[in-house]
């Protein structure tokens, strides 16, 4: 029988802990059967260790294996893909612990554990997740150190220290590899079907929809401007445009007969006319910024004014929006150059113009009558828009988060009866009025505002907003009727605007806006860390790497990358080696030792090489041989040194150290004399 090298008991604790820690994220996120499976395995193992049970035989192991595979199939309907694969490997990882007999099994288990650690990062990419994974690595490494420790009397705690030091030493190398190893595009497209409904904009707008968002303080996206950020009243983050109204709900729509190719430009192939027109008009000042978007499970991206990007993985729509090629399932970063003055190159003709004027056949007759009245009085479109805004400003309209529900002719009921509403009510009825008066108009949904935190802005769900755009003098002009009713909302943001309201409404704000200043500060700080993590670590993609490497290396050639990699790795390992080799000497020198060294070095500079192990008396003798005239001074120094070093205990007080230093200087003078 082959000899089995046992796993020492002082390593077993770490191994068990490492298994629990690495499986934990999967227990929380994964299918329900992960926890019972791990409990079964750990319980069985515990009974085996108490010699109450035997390790499972081949048949039981096979049954458990098949059960795990079947459970994975049952939960996901497949065995491949990130979720199913991770669930399967985590289950098998637990099962492997039941097979652990000797050291060889422990090695397999630990290597498997490192792999399971990597799968954690598929689903969690935040700074805390990274820290957690490092913790798991330390635990796994502690088990690895433990099973390689022959001494049966070893203490478990020392393994953790060894592992922590090893992982710490590995971190600089990891950083170098992170920065320098060429990034390749993902080999397969990872579609994580997290399937969770997230709060956020939807592709249609009906009354009450945006106001629901205001209850959520969840982050929508973060923006970092290259220069100063635009004023709050300029921060209109466009996401969607709604051009079709069915009487209740506004929807996105394309003119009949138009396809996606007519309205979206992906940056591939010849640019359509409208894109060339936009480009041509894109002069003047611009805002340059970087947006880091939270997962929204949708394709809409948010940007200011007329956004230009490198169109890599996203497209510019004809209605001046950015659209991602695939739903945003993880955080997504993109750079934008927004030109406020652009948009002059757009056209609005034929079917598109018809769509922007379209209204339901009937309904909301009072609003139609009001629009017709305005049209008669103000032939000029701009005057008509001002009249409408004046109407909202002068009539008793109220801005409220809890508007009374309206049914039937929603526009009429709001405009003439309730007059209490939220931005979507104003945008919707204003756009309706414009179209009824024959002015092309559309509703734009997105976010308005953003709070500064550090050097970037946070835009949260409660910043959700809807406004209108009307076609005036050959271009789309933003008109925000909410601003006419509640200027605070635009200038100060929703939070501040609501805080200024009466106390009876304040109760509803607590959850969304955070009442505890300390907690709020902490939250902001955590968000700051998270933002920079997103920006510097997760945002370090192919292009960023290319830019950085070009700055560091000049041209990016495989040879240069390889040499830089080799050089950096050698440098780090060399430094670590020096550190390890020097550890023996790291005990700080005591005052007398320093004094002795000083004299030795001074004599060395005068050409007297003393052996490494010279004593005070040996030094005196060497000086007397070389400089007989200095014999007296040397003896003088030696006697005092021996007095301080050997005749008494403890470090000598300062006065005596100075005395010794004086005798040293006297000795050095005697050499010259």
């Amino acid at each position, binding site marked *: 029988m082959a000899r089995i090298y046992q796993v020492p008991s002082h390593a077993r604790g770490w191994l068990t802990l490492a298994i629990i820690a690495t499986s934990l994220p999967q227990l929380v996120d994964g299918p329900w059967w992960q926890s019972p499976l791990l409990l079964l395995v750990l319980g069985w193992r515990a009974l085996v260790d108490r010699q109450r049970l035997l390790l499972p035989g081949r048949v039981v192991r096979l049954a458990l294996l098949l059960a795990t595979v079947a459970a994975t199939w049952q939960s996901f309907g497949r065995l491949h893909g990130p979720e199913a694969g991770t669930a399967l490997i985590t289950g098998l990882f637990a099962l492997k612990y039941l097979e652990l007999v000797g050291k060889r099994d422990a090695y397999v288990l630990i290597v498997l554990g490192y792999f399971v650690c990597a799968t954690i990062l598929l689903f969690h990419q935040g700074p805390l997740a990274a820290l957690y994974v490092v913790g798991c690595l330390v635990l796994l490494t502690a088990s690895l150190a433990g099973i390689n420790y022959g001494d049966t009397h070893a203490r478990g705690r020392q393994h953790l220290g060894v592992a922590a030091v090893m992982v710490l030493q590995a971190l600089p190398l990891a950083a170098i590899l992170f920065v320098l190893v060429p990034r390749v595009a993902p080999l397969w497209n990872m579609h994580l079907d997290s399937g969770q409904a997230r709060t956020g904009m939807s592709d249609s707008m009906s009354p009450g929809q945006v106001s629901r968002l205001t209850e959520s303080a969840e982050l929508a996206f973060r923006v970092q401007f290259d220069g100063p950020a635009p004023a709050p009243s300029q921060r209109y983050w466009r996401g969607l445009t709604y051009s079709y109204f069915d009487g209740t709900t506004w929807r996105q729509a394309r003119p009949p007969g138009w396809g996606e190719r007519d309205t979206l430009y992906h940056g591939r192939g010849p640019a359509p006319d409208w894109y060339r027109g936009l480009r041509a008009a894109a002069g003047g000042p611009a805002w340059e910024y970087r947006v880091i978007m939270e997962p929204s499970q949708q394709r809409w991206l948010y940007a200011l004014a007329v956004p230009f990007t490198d169109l890599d993985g996203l497209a510019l729509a004809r209605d001046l929006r950015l659209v991602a090629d695939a739903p945003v399932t993880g955080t997504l970063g993109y750079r934008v150059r927004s030109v406020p003055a652009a948009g002059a190159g757009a056209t609005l003709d034929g079917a598109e113009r018809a769509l922007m004027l379209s209204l339901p056949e009937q309904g909301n007759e009072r609003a139609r009558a009001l629009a017709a009245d305005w049209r008669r009085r103000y032939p000029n479109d701009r005057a008509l828009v001002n009249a409408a805004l004046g109407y909202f400003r002068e009539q008793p309209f109220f801005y409220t988060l809890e508007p009374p529900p309206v049914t039937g002719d929603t526009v009429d009921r709001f405009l003439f009866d309730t007059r209490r509403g939220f931005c979507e009510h104003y945008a919707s009825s204003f756009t309706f009025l414009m179209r009824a008066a024959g002015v092309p108009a559309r509703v734009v949904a997105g976010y308005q505002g953003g709070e500064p935190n550090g050097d970037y802005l946070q835009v949260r769900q409660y910043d959700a907003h809807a406004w209108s755009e009307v076609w005036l003098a050959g271009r789309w002009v933003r008109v925000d009727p909410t601003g006419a009713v509640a200027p605070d909302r635009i200038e100060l943001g929703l939070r501040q605007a609501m805080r200024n309201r009466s106390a009876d409404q304040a109760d509803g704000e607590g959850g969304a806006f955070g009442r505890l200043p300390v907690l709020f500060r902490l939250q902001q700080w955590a968000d700051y860390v998270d933002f920079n993590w997103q920006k510097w670590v997760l945002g370090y993609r192919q292009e960023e790497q290319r830019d950085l490497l070009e700055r560091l290396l000049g041209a990016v050639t495989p040879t240069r990358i390889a040499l830089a990699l080799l050089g950096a790795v050698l440098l780090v390992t060399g430094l670590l080696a020096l550190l390890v080799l020097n550890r023996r000497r790291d*005990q700080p*020198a*005591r005052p*007398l*030792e320093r004094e*002795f*060294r000083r004299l*030795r070095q001074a004599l060395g500079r005068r050409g007297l090489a003393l*052996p*490494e*192990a*010279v*004593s*005070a*008396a*040996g030094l005196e003798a060497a000086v007397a041989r070389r400089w007989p005239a200095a014999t007296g001074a040397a003896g003088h120094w030696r006697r005092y040194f*021996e007095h301080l*070093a*050997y*005749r*008494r*205990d*403890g470090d000598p007080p300062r006065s005596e150290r100075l005395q010794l230093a004086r005798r040293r200087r006297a000795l050095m003078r005697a050499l010259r004399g």
Partner: protein
Amino acid sequence: MQALDKALAQVGSVVLGKPEQLKLALACLLAGGHLLIEDLPGMGKTTLAHALARVFRLDYRRVQFTSDMLPADILGVSLFDPESGQFSLREGPVFSQLLLADEINRATPKTQGALLEAMEERQVTLDGLTRPLPSPFFVVATQNPVTQAGTFVLPESQLDRFLMRISLGYPAPEVELQLLAGGDLREAVRELRPVIEPAGLVKLVAHVGKVRASRDLLDYVQRLLEATRADDRFSAGLSPRAGLGLLRAARAWALIHNRDYVLPEDVQAVWPSVAEHRLQARQGGQVAALTQSLLQTVPVVRA
């Protein structure tokens, strides 16, 4: 201390030309340790032991070890006394203040072991009767170099019981001339006058423990011990017991030199005789040279 100088001069008058070895032997005695003298026959080992006994007026016995010797020949036997009806111990030669164990490596390990045990315990147990040995109690053992025929090598663990091992070596030509011209050495030893009484010797031994060893000095001793352990030319490093012995010997050396504190030079002076016989060189290295080399490499004052 004048008395010690006088004692040294007295011993030096019969063991000619070996002042360093005499001082080491005296230091060994003052440190309360046993001495092993390793030399060829006829080098003056016996003379040295006898002279030491004389100047301290110690009760001196000499045992010539042979291969047919039994433990009882050293320790004694318990005899049944028919008159009193009790066992009584007839003391062997070990019940003395200074025992010269001549050619200890001629005896069988069993007999060697009996003596070495008595040295360590400072008492003898026979048939359940335990008797303490006299105080002070010193063993001066002599040993022929192991290459000689018919010897039993002392095992390492037993070598450790000897604080020091010294060897006298051939005398220098002029000393030898003096020796040849001189009279009967045996007679000269017998004429040596006691300088220090046994009680005084006990006091001196107690005084050795009070000689100051500062932190810097202890650091140096520790560095030396550490060096024997880190150096893979030795098969094993010095034990902590050896370290304590080294320090005690250095203290005695300082006392002989009339100092109440230890200098690194004291440690260096006793180092070879304390360390050499406890160390073994790996793959045929010269222990003496290796041990000595540590004094050249281990910093006296840490740089």
